[in-house]
C-alpha cells in the first residue's frame, strides 16, 4: 500500500459561495440549465419527487442526470436527490446546485453553501420561518409551510407525505414546469397505487402553484422553456445492465440483495420470465455464484450481480470458474468500503480485489463501463468474452453508475452480437471420435459440450484434471493444463476493449480515469478548455487483459498525468504505474482522489489539475 511513496494526493476544498454565475442567457435570465437538490429525510418522499422532477425535465426536452445521495437507512436520516436538466447534452453534475428545496433545517445547514450567488433556497416553513442565523445573503430565499399545508388539506398526518408534491408545485410555479407533464408523470409512476394517491398528488402540486401565486414574488433568474422532447430513455445503470444482459441472451440470474446491485435482480425478476428466463434469490452470494456456474456449465448465459462484500464471498468460486473453465459473468458494483463501509455510497476501491483475488494462477477478464450506454453494450460483451474464453468475466461498475438515473441515448439492439465461442452442437459432437472437454489446443480454448448432448460427457473439475476432466496429479498433464489455461488470456488480447481518448491529442497534460469519473472528467475538460488549458483524457475500459500499449503511449505522450479515482490509495494509479513499469513515486503522476462515497465535482478535477 505504501501510500507515502505515492504521487502527491490532492484534496480540493472549494468555497462555492463565491461562484458567480454567468448569466449567459437573455435579459439576465438563466434558461434551461438548472440543478435542483431536494434535501429531506429517508422515507419522506423526496426521492419520489426528485424522480418526478427528473422526468418532467425530460419531457420538457431537456437532458437530465440525477444523483441520489441516500443513507443506509429506511426512514429518518438525511438524504438528498439532485436533478440537473439542461437543453444540450452534458455529462455530469454541476459543481453547484441552483435550487435547494430544503424539507428541514438539516438540509439547509448541510447544503446551503452549495448554492452560488443568485441561487435559490425553498424552505419548508411549517415549523416556523428559517432561523435568522441560517439565512444567507446573495441568494433568493422563498418559504412555504409545505408540510403544514399537506397535513391541513390532504388528510391529516397521513397526508404529510404529499408535501413533496407541494414543494414541486412551488418550484414549478417559479421556473415554469408544464403542469400537464407533472400530472402525466404522477400517473405513470403512481397509477398502480390507486386513484386516490394520484389525485392527491395532483392536488398537492396545484396547492404549491397557488401558494406561489398568492405569496411569493419571484426574484431569481431561472426559467425553463419547453423544447422538442428528445428520443432518449430515462434509466439507471442497473436498468441498462439488466436490459443489456437480456438482450445478449442472459436467461439466468442468481443473486442476493445488496446495494447497488439489487435493482438488476429486480429488473430481471420482472422481465426474464417472459423470455423463458429464471431469477433466483439465493441464500447468500456463495450460492448465487455457484448457481451461475451451474447454469452456465449447463449452457445458459447466466450472471450474478453484487458489490464488495458479496464479491469477497464469491472469491473462491472465481477460482472454480477459472479451473473448470466455465463462463461466469459477475457484475461487481463497487461501494464505499472496507467492510460494510458506507453501504449506499460509491467508491472505486475494489480494483485490486477483482484483479487478484483468489488463490492460484488462471485467466480472468475485467471490463468497466464509463457510461450508461457502455453499461448496456459491455454487459453483452461480457457474455461473449466469458463464452469465448471460458473463464470468469468481471463487469466492474460502481454505485454511482448503477443507481443514478439519467437520460440515455436510444440503445441499439443490432449492435448486440451474440458469440458463443467454441460451444458444440449435437451435430458437431457426432463428428468427434473421442471427445475431450479440456483438449489441448493451439489457442488454449477447448470445444465445450453441455449436458444432454450425446457423446459429449465430461467431468467439469476443480481439481487439476486431464483432457477429459478426470482428476489427475500427473506432473506433465498439470504443466500442460496450466499453460493451456493461461494461454487464453494471451489470446484474449485480440478482443481488447481499448481505452478511449478524448480531448486535444497534442495536449501535454493527460487525465486517466475509469468508470463513473467519465462525466466529471469530461465536464472538467470543458472548463479547463475555457480557461485555456488543453488536456486529454484516457478512459480505461478494460483492466484485464490490460491495454498496455495504449496506456503506455498515452503516458509517454504527456509530461504530466492526473489519475482521477474514487479511493484513498490510488488503486488505478498503482495499476498504471505497475503495468507500464514506473516507480510509485514517479514525479509526473498525480492522483486526484476522493473517498467519502460521493462523486467528484468537475471543479475538483479542474482545481486538481491547475494546482499542479
Amino acid at each position, binding site marked *: 500500500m505504501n501510500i507515502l511513496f505515492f504521487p502527491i494526493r490532492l484534496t480540493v476544498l472549494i468555497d462555492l459561495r463565491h461562484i458567480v454565475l454567468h448569466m449567459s442567457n437573455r435579459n439576465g435570465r438563466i434558461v434551461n440549465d438548472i440543478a435542483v437538490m431536494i434535501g429531506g429525510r429517508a422515507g419522506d418522499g423526496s426521492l419520489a419527487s426528485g424522480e418526478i422532477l427528473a422526468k418532467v425535465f425530460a419531457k420538457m426536452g431537456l437532458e437530465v442526470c440525477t444523483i441520489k445521495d441516500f443513507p443506509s437507512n429506511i426512514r429518518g436520516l438525511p438524504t438528498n436527490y439532485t436533478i440537473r436538466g439542461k437543453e444540450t447534452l452534458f455529462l455530469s453534475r454541476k459543481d453547484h446546485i441552483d435550487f435547494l428545496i430544503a424539507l428541514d433545517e438539516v438540509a439547509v445547514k448541510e447544503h446551503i453553501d452549495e448554492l452560488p450567488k443568485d441561487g435559490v433556497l425553498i424552505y419548508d416553513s411549517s415549523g416556523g420561518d428559517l432561523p435568522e442565523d441560517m439565512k444567507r445573503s446573495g441568494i433568493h430565499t422563498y418559504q412555504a409551510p409545505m408540510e403544514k399545508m399537506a397535513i391541513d388539506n390532504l388528510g391529516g398526518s397521513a397526508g404529510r407525505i404529499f408535501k413533496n408534491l407541494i414543494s414541486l408545485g412551488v418550484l414549478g410555479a417559479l421556473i415554469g414546469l408544464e403542469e400537464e407533464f407533472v400530472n402525466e408523470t404522477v400517473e405513470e409512476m403512481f397509477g398502480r397505487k390507486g386513484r386516490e394517491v394520484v389525485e392527491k398528488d395532483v392536488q398537492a402540486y396545484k396547492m404549491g402553484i397557488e401558494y406561489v401565486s398568492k405569496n411569493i414574488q419571484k426574484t431569481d433568474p431561472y426559467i425553463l422553456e419547453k423544447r422538442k422532447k428528445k428520443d432518449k*430513455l*430515462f434509466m439507471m445503470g442497473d436498468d441498462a445492465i439488466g436490459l443489456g444482459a437480456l438482450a445478449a441472451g442472459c436467461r439466468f440470474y442468481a443473486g442476493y440483495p445488496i446495494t447497488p446491485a439489487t435493482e438488476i435482480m429486480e429488473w430481471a425478476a420482472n422481465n426474464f420470465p417472459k423470455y423463458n428466463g429464471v431469477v433466483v434469490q439465493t441464500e447468500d452470494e456463495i450460492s448465487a455464484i455457484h448457481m451461475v456456474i451451474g447454469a452456465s456449465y449447463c449452457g445458459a448465459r447466466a450472471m450474478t450481480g453484487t458489490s464488495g462484500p458479496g464479491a469477497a464471498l464469491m472469491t473462491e468460486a472465481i477460482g472454480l470458474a477459472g479451473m473448470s473453465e466455465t463462463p461466469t459473468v459477475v457484475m461487481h458494483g463497487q461501494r464505499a468500503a472496507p467492510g460494510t463501509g458506507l453501504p449506499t455510497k460509491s467508491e472505486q476501491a475494489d480494483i485490486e480485489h477483482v484483479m487478484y483475488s483468489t488463490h492460484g494462477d488462471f485467466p480472468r477478464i475485467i471490463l468497466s463501463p464509463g457510461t450508461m450506454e457502455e453499461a448496456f453494450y459491455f454487459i453483452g460483451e461480457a457474455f461473449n468474452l466469458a463464452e469465448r474464453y471460458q473463464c470468469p468475466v468481471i463487469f466492474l461498475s460502481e454505485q454511482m453508475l448503477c443507481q443514478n438515473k439519467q437520460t*440515455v441515448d436510444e440503445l441499439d439492439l443490432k449492435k*448486440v452480437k451474440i458469440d458463443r465461442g467454441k460451444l458444440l452442437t449435437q451435430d458437431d459432437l457426432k463428428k468427434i471420435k473421442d471427445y475431450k472437454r479440456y483438449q489441448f489446443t493451439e489457442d488454449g480454448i477447448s470445444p465445450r459440450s453441455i*449436458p*444432454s448432448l450425446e457423446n459429449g460427457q465430461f*467431468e467439469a*473439475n*476443480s481439481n487439476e484434471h486431464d483432457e477429459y476432466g*478426470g482428476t489427475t496429479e500427473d506432473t506433465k498433464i498439470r504443466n500442460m493444463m496450466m499453460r493451456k489455461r493461461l494461454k487464453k488470456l494471451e489470446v484474449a488480447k485480440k478482443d481488447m476493449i481499448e481505452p478511449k481518448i478524448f480531448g486535444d491529442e497534442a495536449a501535454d497534460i493527460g487525465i486517466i480515469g475509469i468508470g463513473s469519473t467519465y462525466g466529471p472528467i469530461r465536464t472538467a475538460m470543458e472548463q479547463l478548455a475555457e480557461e485555456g488549458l488543453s488536456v486529454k483524457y484516457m478512459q480505461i475500459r478494460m483492466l484485464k487483459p490490460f491495454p498496455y500499449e495504449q496506456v503506455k503511449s498515452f503516458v509517454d505522450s504527456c509530461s504530466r498525468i492526473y489519475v482521477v479515482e474514487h479511493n484513498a490509495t490510488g488503486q488505478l494509479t498503482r495499476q498504471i504505474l505497475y503495468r507500464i513499469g514506473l516507480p510509485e513515486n514517479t514525479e509526473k503522476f498525480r492522483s486526484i482522489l476522493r473517498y467519502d462515497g460521493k462523486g467528484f465535482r468537475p471543479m475538483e478535477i479542474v482545481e486538481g489539475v491547475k494546482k499542479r
Partner: protein
Amino acid sequence: MSEKLTISDLDWHKPTWCPGCGDYALLAAVKQAIVRLELDPKNIVIVSGIGCSSKLTDYFKSYGFHTLHGRPLPVAQAIKLANPDLTVIVTTGDGDGYAIGMGHFIHAARRNIDITMLVMNNQVYGLTKGQYSPTASIDFVSGTTPQGSKDQPIDGVALALASGAGFIARSFSGNIRHTSQLIEEAIKHKGFALVDDLSPCVTFNKLNTYTWFKQNIENVDEDKSYNAESVISAFNRAKESKKIPIGLLYKEEKPTYDDQVLDKSRGPLVFEDLSLEQSEFEKLIEKFKY
C-alpha cells in the same frame, strides 16, 4: 442410446477409495438404480463437492461436476433450473454437505428443486485424514478432538424434516440392494430428495463400523406400523429412537420450485433462441421512455 444401459456403461475411472470403504456400495447402488430406471447417461449430471465421497464424479460416466468443498447443491439446483430434462444427483459427504455446506442444504430442502442429494455419511472427514465431522457422536476422539468432541451431532434427517424436504430416507452401505432401492425412489421423487447413507470409513472411523451399524440400525421399511407420511412420526423416530432409523422416513408430494417458476411448455431455457426480437426489445424499452 440404442442399446439397453448396463452397469459397465457407467464405469469411468477405477475408484481409489480404501478397500472396504462404504462409498463403493453407494456407487454401486447409484449405478444399479440408474440402470433400473433406464436413464440415458447423457441426461444425468452428477454434482459433487470435495471429499473422498465427492470423488464419485470421477468414477461415474455421465456428465459430472466436481465442484468445491461444500458447494455441490447450488451448482446442482441451477443445472436443474437451466435444463429440467436432466436428472441431477448430488453426491456429497457429511463434511461437505452438513458442515461447510449446511446453509445450502437447508435452503435446497426448502426450495424444493427436483434434485437428489446422496450423503455418504461416515461421521468423519475422510479425505483430510479423520477429523471428527458434524455427524460424529459426542466424545468421538479424532485428531482435532483428542479429548473427544463436545458438540451434539447433526442429524440430516431431522434437519431435512424441519426444512420441508419432501423425500427423506436413510440407507446403510452394508445393504446395497436397499440403498439402491431408496436411491431409485429418491430419483423418481419430484422435488428435493435426501438419502443419508451410512457409509463406514474403514480407515478413520473405528467406532462406527459395519458391525456397529448392523447392531445400531433399524429399518422402518420393515416396520408396518411406521407412517412415512407423517412429518411428526418421522421426527419422533429421528429424535427419540434408540436405534438409528433407516429406510424411507418421510415422503410428501409438494409443488416443486422448478415446476412453479419455469414455463415448461417452452422447453429448457438452455435451448432458448437467445437473440431478442426487435419488437420485444422495443416493448422492454417502452418503460424507459418518457
